Every structure is written in structure tokens, then in C-alpha cells.
């Protein structure tokens, strides 16, 4: 038993960095007014300045200008806003046609499914065995009248990075708008909207040791988008609701705290987990790509054993990871991502996702694989699928 919890589920949520909390505190206790115009009272003007400073930080992190950033409540809201807002604005101007990939995270995937139910034509584009978008299938699906394409930058489960530059170029050739959910790559892998012609980008603070319940949507200047939540005139009349100023300030601080050195060290840990698992445990499969992968994700199937049994054993030993097994999920469905890359249900059920963050160490990487080695051995000993293979 470890004397502390080893947390390797940083794609789900992260521990808040103390420096982030310190940056946020004044906006709860000292400058708690709403953001006012420059003709408001002093505390409101200070609040507004903090909000705009945070906006500038987010904008600069992706090569955008400040007025192109809208703060939201996170990934789900940003992606809903992007898709529903653009599709509504283009109603009657473009076809009722949307393109997404098969392995999108639920905010995009289920928004697309909702449009499909409402009569839209939605193409769910296949990916290859590494999770990379089938560009030929994509080229066949897209046309001048497609309303919107939404393809993620990095995958939430297997960490595969899409070739966003090529996808964006193909969209521009047809004059089609492109949204990307960058929640799982943001700050870990650079994205520069001044170079890549992507029109909308979803970002979130909860995966980078920032506060949860805060995110942003980049909206390229001139992009047609309707307001989809009615209310006040905040965020230049693009997103109604009281601005979460402490959240925005915390988000900006979290962005500033990510360094290239940190990303480099995360990728070292990631490689160590993959290498150690492959060397020391038999019958394992790396899910996703070896090279086109975010620095903080490893996803491995341990064949002949079931994921929930593994995560429960790991939990009892003080490790937190997630699995693509149906038994683990709230929906009781196997991971659509593992199935999407051509894996069968058994591969999904036996998969573990390790996602790293600032507080993980080489010792964490070592001890979890040591623990898994024992657990897998124990479970394979009672598995009818495993006979001295």
C-alpha cells in the first residue's frame, strides 16, 4: 500500500496548482464586482481589466487576437456553442450537412448525433488503426455546401494527434468552416491559428491544473455564429451569463505555468510507461500512435483480463487510472474510440488509459507498471481466455 494516491487520470481532471488558486483569490475576496464598462465603478473596472488580461493570455497562447476569445464553462459548452452556433447561423445558406470523426469526445459526438436525429446528414469519418483520420473518406464527404466540419486535435483516450493543417486546408479549398476540440492537446502541443486556418477551437482549463468549470472558444473574426444561450450581453454579446472572472484569471495562470520543459518531461514519463509495460508484461497492445501522440497519454490493452477488475485492484493499491471497459463506464458501453480504431470489444475491455500531469514522477510510472504486472498475472491465472499463451 502506498502512503499516497498516485493519480494518473489527468485527462479527466487535474489537481489545481496552488499558484492558480493564489491568482484567483483576489477576484473572490477583493475584486468581486462584475466586469463593468470603463464608465462603471472602480472595482468593476478592475474586474474588467483582469478579465481582458486573461483573455489576452489565452489569445496569445494560440496566435489569436483577444476579441476572438470567448470564455465559457468548459469543453462541453465550447463545443456545443461552436457547432450549434455556426450551424444555426448557416441555416438556409448551406446544406444541413455536418462532418465529424468517429472518435470525437462526447460534446462533439453527441451534438452531431442530436443533429442527425433532427434530420441533418452527418458523416462520421473513419480513422485508421492509430486513430488518424481517413483523409480519402473525408475528401469524399466534404463539399462546398457542407455547413461545418468538427475534427478533434487530440483524442481523449488514445492521445492521437490529427494532421490539423491538412484538414484545415481541405476545408478552406471547399470554403467550409472548421471547428476543432483541442481540450486534450491544449498547451501540451502547440496550435497556432495564425498559421492553420481553423475557425473555431475548444479549450478547457480542467486538464492543465486550472480550475474546472472554465474554458474558452476561439472564434475566428468574421465567422458566422449565433448566440445559443439567451440572456445578457456579456462577452461582446456572444455568450450570456455572469463572467467567471476568478475562473478566467485562473485559466490564464494555468496556461502560463505550462512550459516546454514540462511537456518534455511528461513525454519521458509516457515513454517509460509504454516501454516498461511492453518489456515486462506479455500480450500487451499500445492503443494509438507511437509518434503522433500527446506527451501525457499512454493507452495500453492488457489482453485476457478485464479493465474494471484491473482498476479496482489498482484502486485498492492506491492508483487511479481509467479503462475503456464497458463495466467501468456510466453508459456501460465499451470505448467507441478503441472500437473506432478497429479494436474488438475484448481490446476495449482490457485497456487502461494513463494520463500524466505536473505532479507525476518517474516513481509513479515505475510503481504502477510493477503493480499492473502482478495484477495482470493474478487475473490471467483465473481467466478462461488465457492458457499459457
Amino acid at each position, binding site marked *: 500500500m502506498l502512503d499516497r494516491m498516485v493519480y494518473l487520470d489527468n485527462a479527466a481532471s487535474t489537481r489545481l496548482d496552488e499558484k492558480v488558486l493564489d491568482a484567483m483569490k483576489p477576484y473572490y475576496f477583493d475584486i468581486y464586482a462584475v466586469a463593468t464598462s470603463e464608465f462603471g465603478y472602480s472595482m468593476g473596472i478592475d474586474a474588467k481589466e483582469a478579465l481582458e488580461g486573461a483573455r489576452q493570455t489565452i489569445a496569445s497562447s494560440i496566435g489569436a487576437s483577444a476579441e476572438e476569445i470567448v470564455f465559457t464553462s468548459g469543453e462541453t459548452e465550447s463545443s456545443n456553442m461552436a457547432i450549434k452556433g455556426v450551424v444555426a447561423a448557416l441555416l438556409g445558406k448551406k446544406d444541413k450537412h455536418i462532418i465529424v470523426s468517429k472518435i470525437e469526445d462526447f460534446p462533439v459526438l453527441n451534438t452531431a448525433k442530436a443533429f442527425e436525429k433532427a434530420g441533418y446528414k452527418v458523416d462520421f469519418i473513419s480513422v485508421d488503426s492509430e486513430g488518424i483520420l481517413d483523409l480519402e473518406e473525408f475528401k469524399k464527404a466534404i463539399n462546398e455546401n457542407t455547413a461545418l466540419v468538427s475534427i478533434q486535435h487530440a483524442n481523449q483516450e488514445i492521445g492521437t494527434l490529427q494532421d490539423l493543417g491538412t484538414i484545415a486546408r481541405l476545408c478552406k479549398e471547399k470554403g467550409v468552416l472548421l471547428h476543432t476540440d483541442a481540450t486534450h492537446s491544449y498547451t501540451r502541443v502547440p496550435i497556432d491559428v495564425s498559421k492553420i486556418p481553423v475557425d473555431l477551437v475548444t479549450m478547457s482549463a480542467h486538464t492543465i491544473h486550472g480550475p474546472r468549470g472554465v474554458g474558452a472558444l476561439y472564434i475566428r473574426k468574421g465567422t458566422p455564429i449565433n448566440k445559443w444561450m439567451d440572456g445578457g450581453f456579456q462577452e461582446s454579446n456572444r455568450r450570456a451569463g455572469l463572467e467567471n472572472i476568478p475562473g478566467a484569471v485562473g485559466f490564464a495562470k494555468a496556461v502560463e505555468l505550462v512550459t516546454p520543459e514540462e511537456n518534455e518531461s511528461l513525454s519521458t514519463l509516457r515513454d517509460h510507461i509504454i516501454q516498461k509495460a511492453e518489456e515486462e508484461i506479455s500480450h500487451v497492445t499500445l492503443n494509438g500512435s507511437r509518434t503522433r501522440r500527446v506527451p501525457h497519454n499512454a493507452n495500453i490493452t492488457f489482453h*485476457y*483480463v*478485464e479493465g*474494471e*477488475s484491473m482498476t*479496482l485492484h489498482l*484502486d*485498492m493499491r492506491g492508483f487511479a487510472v481509467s479503462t475503456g*471497459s*464497458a*463495466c467501468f463506464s456510466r453508459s*456501460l*458501453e*465499451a470505448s467507441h474510440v478503441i472500437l473506432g480504431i478497429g479494436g*474488438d*470489444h*475484448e481490446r476495449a*475491455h482490457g485497456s487502461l488509459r494513463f494520463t500524466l500531469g505536473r505532479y507525476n514522477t518517474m516513481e509513479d510510472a515505475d510503481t504502477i507498471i510493477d503493480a499492473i504486472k502482478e495484477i495482470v498475472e493474478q487475473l490471467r*491465472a*483465473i*481467466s*478462461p*481466455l*488465457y*492458457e499459457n499463451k
Partner: protein
Amino acid sequence: MKFPYSEKVLEHFRNPRNVGKMEEPDGKGLEGSPACGDMVAVYLKVDPETTVIEDVKFESYGCASNIATASIITELAKGKTLEEAKKISWKQATEELGGLPSVKAHCSVLAVEGLRAAVRDYEEKHGLVSAKEPTTENVVRSRLKHVMNPMAGLDIVRTELVTKINVEDGNVRILLDLPSNHQFAAAIREDILEKIESLWDVKEVKVVFTE
């Protein structure tokens, strides 16, 4: 620490009883499939005079509920006659375990079905099946509900892979909505044969694929 399972479930999960494969069992039951994420095998050694279960072993590829239920089932079955063992219910097993989360019912039912299948296997092999039920389309259909569709993780009946069943003079024909060159075709066929060929009055089983 907070776990969604009772102490007893966790205890059986950590230290499952009667695990392993049995060489030359008198009866064997296999339920579930890797596709659905849960699979359990139950092996029996039976005293032919008294029909008392002298030894029982299980193997599990499954989640905690599946492993714990299979473990408790083997404890309950040991020393019982086949008739008594058949009556062990899922409810009884879960009560013994101090309850299971309701969403996990499916995984634990499988363990109970594994034991019943092992008893049935023994009875069929030893001519103990009283008042033999003739194999009808419905009997075949209900057995096919234990064959998984690996693409969906659910059985082939529920996922409408089975389009037609024909039973005539012990010849069973099963039509599947699946091309013969499909990656799972061979595995599904094998699974079907295993489930249907053992029926007492079945002479031949044909699995027909689409082109």
C-alpha cells in the same frame, strides 16, 4: 477508501475461492464471451452415485461482480446434489455477498448461468435429462441468446444477426445476416455449434451466411 462493493464482494474479489481449470471435469459450463466483457467457466466433479458435487472450480474473465459471484457460487454448490445446485439463484448469491450494484446484475447472473450450464452438461452427458424436451425453434433461439455478437457486445438474437431458424428431424439450419468472409464469421459459427450440437436430439447443425 470508498468502493462501490460490499466488504464481502471485495474479499471474494481479492481472494477468489476454487479458481482454476479442472482436468477432465464431469460437467463443464461456459457462459458469456470476451465480446460482452464477461465470461465464466464452471467445472464440476460429481459423485455418480449420490450426484453430490464433490469439487467445483471456476475461471473468470470479467469484472469484480463476475469474479465475486462466481467465487461465492462455487462455495454454495460444493457438497450439494445436482438438484440442489440447480436451485441456487442469483438472488441467493447476491444476498450471500451482501448485495451488488444493480447495474452489475448482468455480470453476476452470468456466474449463476455458468453453474447451471455445467449441471446441464453433466446431466446431458450422463443421460439424466428427464422428460427430454424436443428441440424446437424456440429452444434453439433461447440457446442462441448465449452466443455473442462481437461487433455489438450483445447476443446474436438481440442484435438481429439471426434471420431464420429451421428445425426438422434433428437438422438445425440457422441463417445469419453476415457474410461468410466477415472477420467474426468463423468465431460465431464455432460458438453456435458448441451451443446447439450438444442438444440430445440434434443430428446436424448448419450455419448459413449471406454471400
